[in-house]
């Protein structure tokens, strides 16, 4: 990936037309941004689309003071409650009669997520006559997982998911990439990730994240499984929760990023 490869999600959303079903998942949900800005864009170009937003239940409750007269009325807004952890995936699926577009990434459905954050997004676009991408297949698997675990109760939405799944089941998966979406519906993501790494010794671990837990537990978990010499952190300037940064240096590769050597793991 070139550092100059940028995507404007708002422009992307404006380009997609004639979708039948639009499924958007997010952890944090901003009704003002979605109802006031995103929804009108989606409605303008996808007049008959069924729009479904899946959001973490805790964030759904926090967003309640910002519900507008359209929130969850002019589209389906489904809170998802997991037994363990939070519902944190961010993917956007647009299905039309002959095309599927997906975005899998890190952007929440919020003004901050769409404008200010340095987010990563994989975009795929496939003609249904050709088949479906591995990303689409992975998304459908996640949706099926939500249904089978009875995390969605809205009958209309269940019916829509079932219809999408049935329609795509017979389609050929055309990408050759070994793409997976790891989710935490069954098992925590960290243990799945660690189990899939074939090597156990590395020169460097590069961690790209804005927020870090104060007890550094996830890092400890990684270091207990893998032998790593250096850890490098990639942070977005003025958008992280590390309070005391002493050894900041500007990255040569990413203008938006600063990278930080925090510790030397002996």
């Amino acid at each position, binding site marked *: 990936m070139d550092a100059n490869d940028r995507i404007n999600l708002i422009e992307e959303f404006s380009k997609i037309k004639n979708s039948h079903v639009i499924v958007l998942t997010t952890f944090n949900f901003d009704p*003002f941004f979605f109802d006031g800005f995103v929804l009108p864009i989606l409605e303008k170009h996808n007049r008959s689309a069924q729009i479904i937003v899946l959001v973490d239940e805790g964030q759904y409750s926090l967003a309640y003071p910002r519900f507008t007269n359209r929130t969850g009325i002019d589209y389906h807004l489904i809170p998802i409650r997991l037994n363990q952890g939070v519902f944190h995936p961010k993917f956007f699926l647009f299905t039309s009669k002959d095309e599927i577009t997906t975005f899998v990434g890190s952007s929440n459905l919020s003004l901050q997520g769409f404008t*200010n954050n340095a987010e990563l997004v994989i975009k795929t676009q496939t003609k249904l006559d050709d088949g479906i991408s591995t990303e689409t297949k992975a998304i459908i698997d996640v949706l099926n997982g939500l249904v089978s675990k009875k995390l969605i109760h809205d009958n209309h939405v269940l019916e829509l998911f079932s219809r999408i799944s049935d329609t795509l089941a017979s389609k050929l998966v055309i990408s050759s990439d070994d793409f997976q979406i790891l989710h935490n519906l069954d098992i925590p993501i960290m243990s799945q990730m660690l189990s899939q790494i074939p090597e156990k010794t590395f020169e460097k671990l590069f961690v790209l994240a804005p927020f870090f837990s104060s007890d550094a537990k996830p890092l400890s978990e990684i270091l207990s499984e893998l032998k790593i010499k250096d850890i490098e952190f990639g942070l977005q300037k003025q958008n992280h929760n590390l309070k005391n940064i002493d050894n900041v240096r500007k990255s040569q590769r990413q203008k938006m990023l600063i990278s930080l050597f925090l510790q030397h793991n002996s």
Partner: protein
Amino acid sequence: MSVSESRLYWTQKIKSNSRVLDPLGIFYHLKIQTDYVPAITSVTRRMRYYTLQAWFFKNMTENDNPHKLERLFILSTLFHHDGNPSHNSISHIFNKQYFEKDWNERNSFPLNSDFKISGFGRTYYVRQLERLRCAWHDGLKPHTTMINDDLASTLTLENHHLNQDQISKSDLAQYSKLCICDSETNEDEIEVFSKILFGFLNLESPESIEDNIPDKYLDGTMDLVFSGIDDFPDDSIHQELTQRRRNTLFMFMKIIDQVNPSKNEWKETVMNVIYYKQNPLTKNKINFGKLEKIRQYWEVHQYLIYFVFTMESILDILQKQLRKNVNGIELKNFMDCFQRDKFQDSFNVITNSRINQKSFLSDLISILDSKIDTNHASMESPIHEYSLMTSLKHTSSSEEKMCIILVMICLLRQRLDHLPQEILKNYSQSEFKDIDDEINVNNFMTFFDESKSSTLFDFSQKLIEKISRKHLFESSRRYRFGTKNWIFTEEEGLLYPSGRKLVRINERNNRWNPIYNLLLDTKMIQNESNVTLTEKGKTWMQMIE
């Protein structure tokens, strides 16, 4: 992208870089200043621009370029003042700085698009000519009245250079009469425009300017009646709007006549006399007589100015704290940014009483009730809205600012019930259908009433949350129309600064300056060390007193 290709991207950063106007979406409260001086806007500050556009309607055709006339006007004005755009006589001329650097070196100037102008002279004034019954465009063709012709005829202007793309410096000499300062001595222009501005028009066909003004009404019998309602028959719209403007202009002149404010304080004086009905210098009551009805509209307006300014000052606290905490502030604990001791000390200074961190909003209300007559606005009171607004403008401490805001809200809540409710009703209706507007004055005061048992600290936290929500709503709504004006964003309970320049928060009283300037241009008032009525102004006042 091929049909099966996947690509990984960084998202593009989108900067908030639009001009920030009405960041809370509450300027609908301030429409009195639009409704009660029709034909005068915040940017229509010089009589000559009205005349210039009237001249264009009379003498040029639709195929002619109005910007050429505006360019000639700017150039001739500059020429008349040796190219000095800062000359006192030529204030409020658009694009006058364009040749500031090379005026002396140039021998000629472009009249075509090489001289890039904003065209504001046309944009801002033509619409107002319609409201003055001079000229308008019905979508097919322009229409002009005798009123327009009379105004246009006061300007002597040869138009042969308007067909050219250049004009030499020496040729500009023949256009000295076009300079804006010529209107100071152009008695015809002053007389005609005065009558138009004050609405002395015959609306019969053909529409024309009334004769014998002011002599006709010097017995004080001039009609000042207006309905104040917006639901009136089409054929009386113009009469109603004219009367509103006329009332406002006479009210302004009455205040000047009663107080003779100093040149530097005339605006504050106008605001305060309207709101407190007092002479700020002597504290004596002022009787507005026939103008009492219009004063009540502007009193409501001033009240809403205080309300909007107070709400925007909370936003100011938010933006300034966020600039100090660029990695974000948790919204639900925003007040943790405040130094509690400083907060408490500020209260004690402002209210001259012992307020502590655990004091309730009801305690503050009781203290204010014991110290001042909160039901009646008075400049003699130790705490009043104007003094609080002045303090708000001058303090840089968030703690002190929040204390002043809380006191101001308490005062405004008490005043609310004593305002003319019929007038207030029309200007306090929320314009938003999608949300219950939390910052609408009525909704806000209901919230205030329901929060009296909150501690001052908790109430302040709730204020911050309300203001942040409304700004986030408004910025998302505006973004739909392409405006990127967010001062901050929010995600996962954290507020983040947008990184834009500090947005200056000012009171939104924006009609007094143009009224003042137009009354100077029409020689109704004069500004020496003090602002006073001219002999002409005094004579005109006899029409209503």
